[in-house]
């Protein structure tokens, strides 16, 4: 228990640092340093005193790119997770509470999205919709809500089977009252834990899509950096400094979200 908390605190600390970097980077880094048309440094410089993590194919500092990319990756991860968990919670509670035909219909839709390979669907969506951050958020959000929906539905069913809900109903509580006052408060902890873990998967999904070249081409993100490294020949150049930093950044942040999520899970579970 305490070990879990300790790793949870470590995860939270990492996230705090990442968030700080994401907020500060755009304020500190001047636009010229990340503009390929304005940089003057030589391309493909290996790490050194001037450029801690070397330069990319156009002469931009990889360290600055990683710092700048933190914002995009975190933003997409968070919003996509909120979207996914929001849809999932809504579908889960509604289907759990109302049951019958509504539940049947909603569950079939859930099943449909569950069996569809999420990455393929996300690729299809981001190919058809216009390029941009919104599309990526939408693509990830629309493909990763079914598991949340299932979990929330199960939780809703167990809550609604309890005597206090039955009492509330007997006293004349309507749907809104039951859902708002009884179901939702009991589901929220679970949803929070789920959201934290969902952010981790959403960041990985964003990086995957960007790596495949389906991201917003005008924005710097960690996945987009990997995409450019691959596209412009970092491998034959042996430019490990262009490939490793964004990759490591993804791993660290995803790990941090997972640690925090697990710790929250451990905190939330025994109370029930």
């Amino acid at each position: 228990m305490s070990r879990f908390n300790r790793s949870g605190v470590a995860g939270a600390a990492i996230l705090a640092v990442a968030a700080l970097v994401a907020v500060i980077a755009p304020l500190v880094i001047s636009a010229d340093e990340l503009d390929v048309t304005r940089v003057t440094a030589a391309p493909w410089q290996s790490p050194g005193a001037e450029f801690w993590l070397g330069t990319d194919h156009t002469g931009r500092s990889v360290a600055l790119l990683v710092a700048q990319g933190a914002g995009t990756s975190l933003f997409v991860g968070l919003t996509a997770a909120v979207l996914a968990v929001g849809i999932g919670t809504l579908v889960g509670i509604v289907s759990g509470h109302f049951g019958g035909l509504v539940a049947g219909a909603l569950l079939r839709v859930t099943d449909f999205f569950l069996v569809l390979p999420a990455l393929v669907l996300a690729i299809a969506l981001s190919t058809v919709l216009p390029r941009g951050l919104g599309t990526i958020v939408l693509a990830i959000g629309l493909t990763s809500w079914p598991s949340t929906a299932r979990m929330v539905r199960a939780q809703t069913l167990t809550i609604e089977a309890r005597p206090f809900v039955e009492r509330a109903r007997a006293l004349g509580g309507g749907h809104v009252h039951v859902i708002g006052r009884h179901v939702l408060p009991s589901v929220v902890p679970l949803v929070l834990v789920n959201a934290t873990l969902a952010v981790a998967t959403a960041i990985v999904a964003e990086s995957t899509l960007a790596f495949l070249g389906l991201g917003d081409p005008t924005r710097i993100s960690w996945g987009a950096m990997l995409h450019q490294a691959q596209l412009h020949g970092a491998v034959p150049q042996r430019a490990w400094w262009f490939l490793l930093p964004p990759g490591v950044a993804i791993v660290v942040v995803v790990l941090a979200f997972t640690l925090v999520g697990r710790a929250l899970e451990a905190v939330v579970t025994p109370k029930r």
Partner: protein
Amino acid sequence: MILKVAIVQQIDSMNPFLAVFQSSTEVGRLMYDYLTAYAADDQRVTEGLANRWEPSADKLTWTFTVPEGKTWSDGQPITAHDVAFTYNLMLTNEVARTANGSFVTNFSSVTAPDDRTVVIKTKAPQVTMLALDIPIVPEHVWEKVTNIKDYANDQMPVVGSGPFVLTEHVAGQFIKLKANKNYWRGAPKYDELHFVYFQNSDAAVQALTKGEVDLVNRMAPAQFDSLKDKAGVTRNKAQGRRFVELLINPGARTRTGEPIGDGNPALGDVRVRRAIAQAIDLDALVQRVNLGYAEKGAGLVPPVFGKWHWEPGEKELRTFDPAAANAALDAAGYPRKADGTRFSLRLTGRAGRAYDEQASEYLKRQLGDIGIPLDVRLVSDNQLNEATTVATYDLAFSGWATNVDPDFILGLHTCAQRPGADGKGGTTDAYFCDQAYDELYARQLSEFDEGKRVELVKQMQARFYDQVPAVVLAYENALEAYRSDHFARFTTQPAQGGVIMAQNGMWGYYGAEPAARASASGTTWVGFAVAGGVIVFIVVAIMRQTRRRRATAGERE
């Protein structure tokens, strides 16, 4: 000795009547000669299967002579009947016209009065009569083929007339060809030619550095740079046949004059298009995006085709000048609004293509400087194709490979190439339609005096440059590399700054000369053997000496 060549593009068909992919026609050129060929050093028309040709006075009848002494790889003589058979097959069978049909549409008849003479009659004078890129097939093999469409041409070894004979083909893995010892120009200097498939060019470059393949082309600038000081690898930076361009939607219309697409109406004004072209720093694009492996763009024909290439003169040249572009836009009636912009444009390119992803950043900056913010849309291949064919673009990246004869690339920009009323048909590149340009096109098509035709072709390019339906950004270099420790030299086309692969011919493969590796390693082996023998001899001699001494010492005792 085997020459191993890395290829990335798949083969669509080994049947020369159906093959359209560049990789397939490249193998086809090795298997079959054409009626005429393009010389390696300067691409002039030279002997193919025919060694003499004569047009009639009215340019409607052409007589080709197929000399004696050339044979198919199975020993049968090559005659005029084979040529007539091939062309007539294309004239009578629609399927046989799939790949090269455009060359024969103007033919009225092809006959072979005797074994040596081919007579071709055309409906109208045709300037491309000595540039008929049609593989000639052996009649005694192909007369038995009843269904061209399903004929895979895989009866190994495939009977052909070229310097190599196809012996084995496993789709997606390799293609093996043997040297044709009876080739009329003389046998190649090595025994076998293998094409080996690779998933991507990164893998092909790795294989080259490891010595698994001997020749790689179509490298990215970064890959080319990475091979700079590699021992045993020689790089070949060649003038390419390709150019990249930026389309500017000039107000697209169909052949019947109906507007099509949703291009920004401001681009219909030629002054605006000129200002945009003037605001683009072509030198910066060549230096930073092509890493210097390209030449600054101007006319539609790349400089590799020297005599057809057009460079703007002092008067016509548009130098990079944002201030002048700003002034021109002000004068044209597009003043800056309160926020400093005039109007915004979409820039459509292909996601995942290195050039588009990088060049779009530069264009965004440079056009932003003249008050035109760009909305960069990098999309999939299909979406880009769709946008350019139905004209739903303002600015878009495009590019073409050109042929020895400029007719094709010039023809793309005639009014007739625009789509019909239903939005289909036509292969227009930039929705260009200009009366002056079309008149010049028609004149060059029937101009048999080459000097005059060159002049017309240059005038067309000047007109195109002046009207700017597209800005030619750069002529990309063809980047190739080969194992110089395996093969000493390759024949390039043209001789100066030419390519080894993707030629208008098969000279690169045919002229490859193996390095003197075998004899060199032989001498070192002999050297080691001699040195080893000497050492053994000395050791034995010393041992015998000491033993004798010992023996004598013992005897002395």
